[in-house]
């Protein structure tokens, strides 16, 4: 089995997120890190490999991003990926989730994976859906928010928390699975693995190399146009009660709730 893991470099969770005044888009400068959800995807791939239920020839980390994205790939490799692929091309810069999914799918086609794993969301985009877009372009079944995954011959048995409780779904391979953070506890890379990461093969590709139609990607071609952000409406100041006579206080609370039809 060949597993491809889609990873993304995102601003560190601790860094204050803000809009870049000049572009009107998210300011992605500053500290960056491998998207935490993707570490769960890599761990899931490693657990399949180490589990032995099915032989895994290689785990390939794939990312689309600027030059700095190689750090995410190094991290992915230190966590166990055998090699990585970096799609870097000015043509894809500024792509929205749909265009990004298309570009990644084209990159993946070249690898012919049996299984594509990714974290179900990224800290910055907050879209939760790139797996579904990639799957559609690859013509593969897809499930998101998977928190348990067992390997069966030619298929996966997955669990996820959906609208009405937990669903168990069998998905035949090849497939695209987006994992939630509850699926596993990612391992820590050993110092040796961290230091050896830079030596693993890294394949840099451009849009042309993987057959991406430049007219379908990039900021100017996005089908959804995002405009500059504004501040959310300010909330009116609230009311404060100092509790002295608890019976009276409680009466006031109930009246307040009743007024708002919360009872």
């Amino acid at each position, binding site marked *: 089995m060949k597993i491809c893991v889609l990873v993304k470099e995102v601003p560190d969770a*601790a860094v204050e997120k803000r809009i870049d005044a000049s572009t009107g888009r998210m300011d992605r400068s500053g500290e960056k890190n491998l998207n935490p959800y993707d570490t769960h995807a890599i761990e899931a791939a490693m657990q399949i490999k180490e589990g032995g239920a099915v032989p895994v020839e290689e785990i390939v980390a794939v990312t689309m991003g600027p030059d700095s994205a190689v750090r995410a790939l190094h991290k992915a490799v230190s966590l166990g990926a055998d090699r990585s692929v970096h799609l870097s091309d000015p043509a894809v810069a500024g792509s929205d989730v749909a265009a990004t999914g298309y570009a990644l799918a084209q990159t993946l086609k070249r690898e012919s994976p049996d299984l594509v794993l990714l974290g179900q969301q990224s800290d910055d985009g907050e879209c939760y859906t790139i797996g579904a877009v990639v799957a559609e372009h690859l013509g593969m079944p897809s499930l998101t928010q998977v928190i348990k995954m067992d390997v069966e011959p030619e298929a996966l048995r997955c669990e996820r928390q959906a609208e009405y409780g937990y669903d168990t779904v069998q998905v035949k391979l090849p497939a695209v699975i987006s994992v939630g953070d509850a699926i596993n506890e990612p391992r820590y890379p050993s*110092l*040796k693995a961290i*230091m050896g990461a830079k030596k693993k093969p890294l394949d840099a590709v451009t849009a042309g190399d993987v057959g991406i139609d430049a007219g379908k990607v990039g900021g100017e071609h996005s089908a959804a146009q995002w405009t500059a952000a504004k501040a959310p409406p300010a909330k009116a100041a609230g009311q404060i009660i100092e509790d002295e006579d608890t019976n009276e206080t409680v009466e006031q609370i109930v009246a307040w709730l009743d007024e708002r039809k919360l009872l």
Partner: protein
Amino acid sequence: MSSHNDSSNDKVVPAAWPPPVDSQKEFVKRGLDPEDELIEVGVAIVGGGTAGLACANRLLQLLADDPETLERLGEVPVAVVEKAKTCGGHNLSGAVMRPGPLQELFPDLTREDWRKEGFAFGEVTKEAVYLTPTSKLSVRIPTPPPFKNHGNEVISVAALARYQQQQAEEAGAYILTETAATQLIVEDGAVVGVRSGDKGRGKDGEPLGNFEPGTDMKAHATVLAEGCWGHLTGAAIKEFNLAEGREPQVWELGVKEVWKVPQPLDRLIHTMGPWPLKLSHKYGQIGGTWIYPMKNEKTGEDLVSIGFVVELEYADATTSAHDLLQTFKTHPLVRKILAGGERVAWGAKALPGGGYWSMPKLSMPGAVLVGDSGGMVDTMALKGVHHCIKSGMLAARSIYAALARGESSLASYEQAIEESSVGKEMWEVRNARQPLQRGLLLGGPLSGIQQITKGRLPGRAAWHRNDETRMFVGKTKDVYPKPDGKYTFDKLSSVFITGNATRDDAPNHIRVQKRVPREIAETWRWMCPAGVYEIPEDAPEHGEVDVIVNYTNCVQCGAITAKGGRLTTPEGGDGPLYQIV
């Protein structure tokens, strides 16, 4: 173990309640793991702050011109071990830096380049020193010599370290972030490397599902650049008797904020109190503040760095550097500067204040100490960054010389420090700070005499340890304002903006005795800028109390080590992520 009676206002001494830690036993590893399990590097630098990285930067510059020696050092000529997520993440300082050493380190960079890179914020052209006799009054005094800063540069060490990290990586260093060095490896009386910390232990130290043990890192030479009260530095000092014949080290705690302001501040400001500190000798409070203008060339923003520093030898348990900073902000002098602005950063860090006589011996077989780890901070002028850089460079030179010649002794480094600007400046002020232990009124003039004579008066002034002060619960806290969340802030929301991302179930890295007299508990509770120590609601007012340790709040300032506890290295990657402090 101590016989204190429980009457109210009884004074107690933190040193009588030592933390449960045996640094030589726990933090020194005798002997290396087998070859196939360890990693070999040329030079291991523990600590990716300004000093450690300056050493790496310089070392790689020297090695670039000597391919033979470089080759001999193997695949990893220089490795920097840094426990924060990125270099600079745990670094904090005022800071106004003397430009010399950095210019020496990177001669091709101009000061304009420094500002474009985002770690420098303008040359000092105007400065002022004030006294604050009351909460409303400020009196400008002629600038005392140590506070003359003309020509110096306002910088951020957190940002500078990031820049240095980039340079080091480009020059071929392996920067291992999110990695703590937990043990010094000693074999046959010499330091042969360090061991990295385990990852994936639970609250009680038990290995969790994803437990990953640390690794031994064998090195030809080791540089301890751990900053204030370095973890391995402490072990090394004990192991190799590096503090023999020296004065004990003493510490100061600084709490800092960075504000975005509507109009730029036109001058560098220092204040020397006394308000909000108490003049009374009984309180033992010595401290001051700084307010520095910062022009961020990358964003065009006008910023202000403001901080409060207090020596940790104070006796009033309710002394809180964080709250003193909030109090100080209410002074009209400060309100004028910060009004209409927005707080964008907060942080805290302890620094070694003992000066020359407290500096340990700086080299031992196989290793050297640089920067704050070696106590190289001039607390009269509030300057340490340039010493960090200079000492890092001198260490690099000594190490390179030894490696190139195939020698093992690094002792030439000590002489180099003595003869350099570091040694000279530290020597000049070696007795200047100690008189202040007698309080500002008595000690001030004595300190002044030392400064004016530029250290030419003979003698050696003693320090007494911070944790030997008898603590009492006093009235300093009475002036602290109630945080309003817009101008003055509580500790918890301050910790939050540091990006503190300590794992929920990480093991406790703070060693303190859990049951101590109320006065000690109060000391820790007020002192800690991050609100780590709490006293339970139902604890008795007098006598012994249990201390709650919220170690996940810890921003690793190091103050607890000075006053009866011990900060050990948490799991790599934990702690704050300072960016512009």
